[in-house]
C-alpha cells in the first residue's frame, strides 16, 4: 500500500481514459471489495462474537479458556516459530550459496528449490508419508521400521519447511542480489576480511529481510491446512482444528471463534512486518554501486555450499520422485506392482476436478489481475476519494490465513442476501480475493512501465486513444500482467485451505480431492492427481509467456 501511495504523489492525476470509465467503475469496484473482502470478515466476527442468548464474546472467552484449545493455540505458535526460524536460516544459507559462492549447477538447484512454490503444500505430506510413514519406503521398506514418528511436530516441521522455505529463499535471493556490492568492498578496503564484511555490513543490512522472512514463514505455517490434517497426529494445530470443528462436529460458532484465534496472530505478524520494513529499510545512500560482488572461491566454503544445496535438492527430488512412483504403483508401501490404474482414474473420476480447477483458476487469474490493474491505476494515478481505503482493504487478504477466508466466505454467502454456496462464483471469488493483492502488485509493475509521455507521443503522431492503448500501452504492460496472471493461477490451484469450505459436488477442485483420496487411503490416485496438477502448473508457467509474449519480443528485437 505504501508503495502505491508513494507513486500517487509523483504521478498526479494522469492516466488512461479517466474521464470516461473511472467515475462509473470506481464506486462499483469499491462496492465489490466491500462485499467480497470486508463483509465476509464481518460475518465471521459476528458468528464468533454474538452467539445465542449470552452477552457478546461469551463464546470467544469460553473457547479461549478451554485447556485443549490453549494447547492447540500454543502448538500452532510453536510450529510456526520453529518453521519460521529454521526456514529463514535454511533460506538464507541457500540464497547465499546461490548468489555469493562459486558452485556449479545453479540452474538445477534453483529449479528444484522453486518446485514446492508451485505445488500444493499437501504434496509434501503425501511424499513424506510415502517415504517415511508407517509403510514408508525408507522407514519400512529399507529399514523395516513401522513407525508413526513422522506424525506430529517433527513431520509437520519437515513438511512445512519443504513447502515454504522456498518462498523465503526467493525473498532472500532478491535481497542478496540487491545488496550493493560496494558496501562489502568498502569494508574490505577498510580492513575487514570476507567474514567480517558479511557479519558487520551485509547481515545488518539484510536484517529487515530476515525478519520479513521469519514473519512470512510464520504466516504460511499458520495458514497451512493440508499438512496438519495429514501429518498432525497427536500435535493438533488451529487450522486443522477449525476444519474438524466445522466439518466433523458441525459447530460453526465454535469454528468461527477458533478462526479469530488463528486470525489474530496472523494479523499481528502482518502489521509487524509492515512496520518493520518501513522503519528499518535504509534508503540507499548516494548513487547505487554498479559493480557486482566476486563469488567466494574459498574451497571449503564452496564444498559446504554444494553440500547444502545438494542435500536440500535431493530431499525435494526424493519427494517428487516418490509421488511420481506412487502414481504408477498399485499400492505404494504394500504392493509395488506397476499400474496405469491411478492415472486412468485421474483422467476419468477426477477429470471434473482437473477441468474445474483449470477453468476457475484461469478465470480468477484474469479477473484478479484486471481488478488489480484498475485498483493500481486508481490509487497511483488518480485522486479519488477513499482510494487509500480501497487499496488497504483489497490488500488485507495478505494478512488472513486461507482457512479463515474460506470459512468467512462459506458463512457469508450461504444464505440471503447473497447465496453463492455450491456455485462456481464462490470459488472464483475466493480465488480472486486471495490473489488480488498480487494482482495489484502486478498492476503497479505494469503502470511503472508507462510514462505519461508515451501515450502523448503516440497521440501526437496521430493515433487514436484506442490505437494508443492497443499498440503502445498494452504491449508495454503485457509482460507484467501475464506474470501476475500466472502467479495468481498458481496460487489459486495450489491452495487447499481457502477452498475447502467452499467446494461443492458441482464444483470440485484438485486439492480437496487429493485430501479426500488420502483420507480414503487411495494413495495412488492422490499421487497421480498430484503429478497432474504439478504438470499443469508447470505447463502454464512455461507455456503462457511463450504463447502470448512471443510476438511482443520479436517486435522489440527488430
Amino acid at each position: 500500500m505504501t508503495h502505491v501511495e508513494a507513486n500517487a504523489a509523483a504521478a498526479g492525476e494522469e492516466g488512461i481514459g479517466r474521464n470516461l470509465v473511472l467515475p462509473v467503475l470506481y464506486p462499483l469496484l469499491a462496492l465489490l471489495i466491500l462485499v467480497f473482502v470486508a463483509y465476509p470478515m464481518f460475518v465471521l466476527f459476528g458468528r464468533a462474537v454474538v452467539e445465542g442468548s449470552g452477552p457478546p464474546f461469551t463464546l470467544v472467552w469460553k473457547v479461549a479458556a478451554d485447556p485443549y484449545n490453549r494447547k492447540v493455540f500454543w502448538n500452532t505458535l510453536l510450529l510456526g516459530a520453529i518453521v519460521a526460524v529454521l526456514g529463514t536460516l535454511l533460506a538464507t544459507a541457500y540464497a547465499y550459496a546461490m548468489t555469493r559462492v562459486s558452485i556449479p549447477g545453479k540452474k538445477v538447484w534453483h529449479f528444484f528449490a522453486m518446485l514446492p512454490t508451485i505445488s500444493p503444500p499437501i504434496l509434501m505430506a503425501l511424499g513424506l508419508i510415502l517415504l517415511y510413514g508407517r509403510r514408508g519406503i525408507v522407514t519400512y521398506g529399507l529399514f523395516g521400521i513401522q513407525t508413526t514418528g513422522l506424525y506430529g511436530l517433527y513431520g509437520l516441521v519437515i513438511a512445512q519447511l519443504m513447502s515454504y522455505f522456498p518462498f523465503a529463499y526467493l525473498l532472500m535471493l532478491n535481497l542478496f542480489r540487491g545488496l550493493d556490492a560496494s558496501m562489502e568492498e568498502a569494508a574490505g578496503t577498510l580492513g575487514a576480511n570476507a567474514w567480517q564484511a558479511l557479519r558487520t555490513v551485509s547481515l545488518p543490512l539484510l536484517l529487515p529481510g530476515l525478519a520479513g522472512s521469519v514473519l512470512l514463514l510464520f504466516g504460511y505455517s499458520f495458514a497451512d491446512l493440508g499438512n496438519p490434517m495429514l501429518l498432525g497426529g497427536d500435535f493438533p494445530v488451529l487450522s486443522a482444528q477449525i476444519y474438524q470443528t466445522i466439518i466433523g462436529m458441525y459447530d460453526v460458532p465454535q469454528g468461527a471463534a477458533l478462526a479469530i484465534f488463528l486470525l489474530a496472530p496472523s494479523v499481528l505478524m502482518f502489521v509487524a512486518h509492515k512496520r518493520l520494513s518501513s522503519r528499518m529499510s535504509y534508503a540507499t545512500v548516494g548513487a547505487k554501486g554498479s559493480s557486482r560482488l566476486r563469488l567466494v572461491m574459498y574451497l571449503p566454503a564452496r564444498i559446504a555450499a554444494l553440500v547444502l544445496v545438494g542435500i536440500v535438492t535431493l530431499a525435494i527430488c526424493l519427494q517428487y520422485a516418490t509421488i511420481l512412483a506412487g502414481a504408477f504403483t498399485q499400492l505404494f508401501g504394500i504392493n509395488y506392482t506397476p499400474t496405469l490404474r491411478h492415472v486412468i482414474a485421474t483422467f476419468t473420476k477426477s477429470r471434473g476436478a482437473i477441468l474445474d480447477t483449470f477453468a476457475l483458476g484461469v478465470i480468477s487469474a484474469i479477473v484478479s489481475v484486471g481488478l488489480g490493474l484498475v485498483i493500481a491505476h486508481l490509487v497511483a494515478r488518480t485522486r479519488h476519494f477513499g482510494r487509500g481505503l480501497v487499496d488497504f482493504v483489497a490488500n488485507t487478504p495478505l494478512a488472513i490465513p486461507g482457512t479463515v477466508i474460506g470459512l468467512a466466505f462459506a458463512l457469508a454467502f450461504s444464505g440471503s442476501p447473497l447465496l453463492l454456496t455450491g456455485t462456481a462464483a464462490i470459488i472464483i471469488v475466493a480465488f480472486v480475493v486471495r490473489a488480488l493483492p498480487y494482482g495489484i502488485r502486478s498492476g503497479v509493475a505494469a503502470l511503472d512501465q508507462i510514462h505519461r509521455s508515451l501515450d502523448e507521443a503516440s497521440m501526437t503522431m496521430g493515433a487514436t486513444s484506442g490505437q494508443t492503448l492497443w499498440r503502445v500501452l498494452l504491449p508495454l504492460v503485457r509482460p507484467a500482467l501475464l506474470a501476475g496472471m500466472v502467479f495468481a493461477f498458481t496460487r489459486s490451484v495450489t491452495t487447499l485451505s481457502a477452498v475447502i469450505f467452499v467446494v461443492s459436488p458441482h464444483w470440485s477442485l484438485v486439492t480437496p480431492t487429493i485430501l479426500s483420496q488420502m483420507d480414503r487411503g487411495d494413495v495412488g490416485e492422490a499421487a497421480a492427481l498430484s503429478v497432474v496438477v504439478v504438470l499443469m502448473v508447470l505447463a502454464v508457467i512455461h507455456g503462457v509467456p511463450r504463447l502470448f509474449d512471443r510476438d511482443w519480443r520479436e517486435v522489440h528485437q527488430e
Partner: protein
Amino acid sequence: MSNRTAKSLRVQSLNKSYGIKGGPRIPAVIDFSLDVAPGEFVTLLGPSGCGKTTALRVLAGLEDIDSGEVLLDGRSIARLPPHRRRIGMVFQNYALFPHMSVFENVAYSLRLRRAAEVDVKRDVGDALDVVGLADFSNRLPGQLSGGQQQRVAVARALVMKPDLLLFDEPLSNLDAKLRVQVRSELRRLQRALGTTSLFVTHDQEEAMSLSDRIAVMRAGRVEQIGAPSEIYARPATLFVAGFIGKVNALPGTVVSTNGGRATAECFGHRFDISGAAVTRGDALLLVRPETVLLQPPERTGIAGIVSEIEYLGDRTEYRVRVGETTVAAVRPSLGQEASFTEGARVSLAFAGDSIHLLPAGSV
C-alpha cells in the same frame, strides 16, 4: 594526522580483462604502468569506459589481475586481499554503511583492529575535524547531503592512515558549484596530509586543478603521463589534445628541422616552432583556439571567412572557414573589442611558440 612516511607506488605492465559468459575475455586495462612518488597526487583521466575504475579496483585488490606487478614502497601487494593492503578507497557512490552513524562509519577500520576506545574517539574526532564534520558524528549517512557524505567517505578512508588513497570519481555525484568547492578542499587536505593519492575522473578541469601529474587513459591504455601544463601544451597524441580542452588540428608540412626547432608550412604560411620532435614531411599543427588571433582582413595572416559565432557570456567562439578547413578561435567577450559578424572576412594569425606539432598520422 600528517603522514610523514608517505609511500611510493609502482605499477608495472598491469593487464586486466573481464570474462563475459559465453564470449571472449574483454581487456579493460592493458599494459598499464605508472610510478607515483611518495606524497604525489596523480590523476587518471579518460573518457567513460576507458578502464579507470578497473585500474583503481585492481590496485585496491577488488579485482584479480591477469598479469603485472603492483609495488607499494617496493613491496609487492598484487596478491594480497583488499583487507591486507592498507589502501584507502573513496568510492564513486561513497559506499557509506547506511546502518551506522557517521562516527561508526569512520571508526569502522579502527574497530576491526580492536583499537582502544580512547584512541577510536581521538582518531575519529580528528578525522571528522579535518573534513569539518565534527558536529555530525551521530547522524546516519542518509541524513547528510551529498557533499557531507563525500567528506565522511574521505574521513573514513583517512582514519586508517592508508599507504595509498584511491578516489573513484568522488565528485561526480555533486552539483557543479559544490564540486569546485570540495575539489579545492580535497587538494588542500591531501597536501596537508601528504598521503600518496591516485584520483580518477573524466573531467579534465578537475584533473588539471587537482593533480601533480595526470595520466590520460584511452581504451585501457595510458596515453600520456605528465604535469597538467605539459599535457595541455604538449599533448602526445591528438586524442590527448582533444580530451584536454579544444584544439585545432591543422594539416601542414614540416619543411625543415633544426635541433629542437622546426619550420612548418600551413595554409601557405610558414611558422617557426620550438620544442618540436618531428621529422620532415606531413604533420599536424595543433593550435588552441584561445591562441588564434582574429584580425581585420587587411592585416597580414591567413585569410578566412567567419562562418559561425557562438556567444557564451564571458567569451565568444568563432568558426572561421579557411579553404576546406574550419578553424576555431575564442575571444574574451570584452566590450571594446572589434567584433566580427558572420560572413565577415578576417585574417588569422598564430604565434609560433603556441603551436605544437604532431606526426600526420596521430589520432
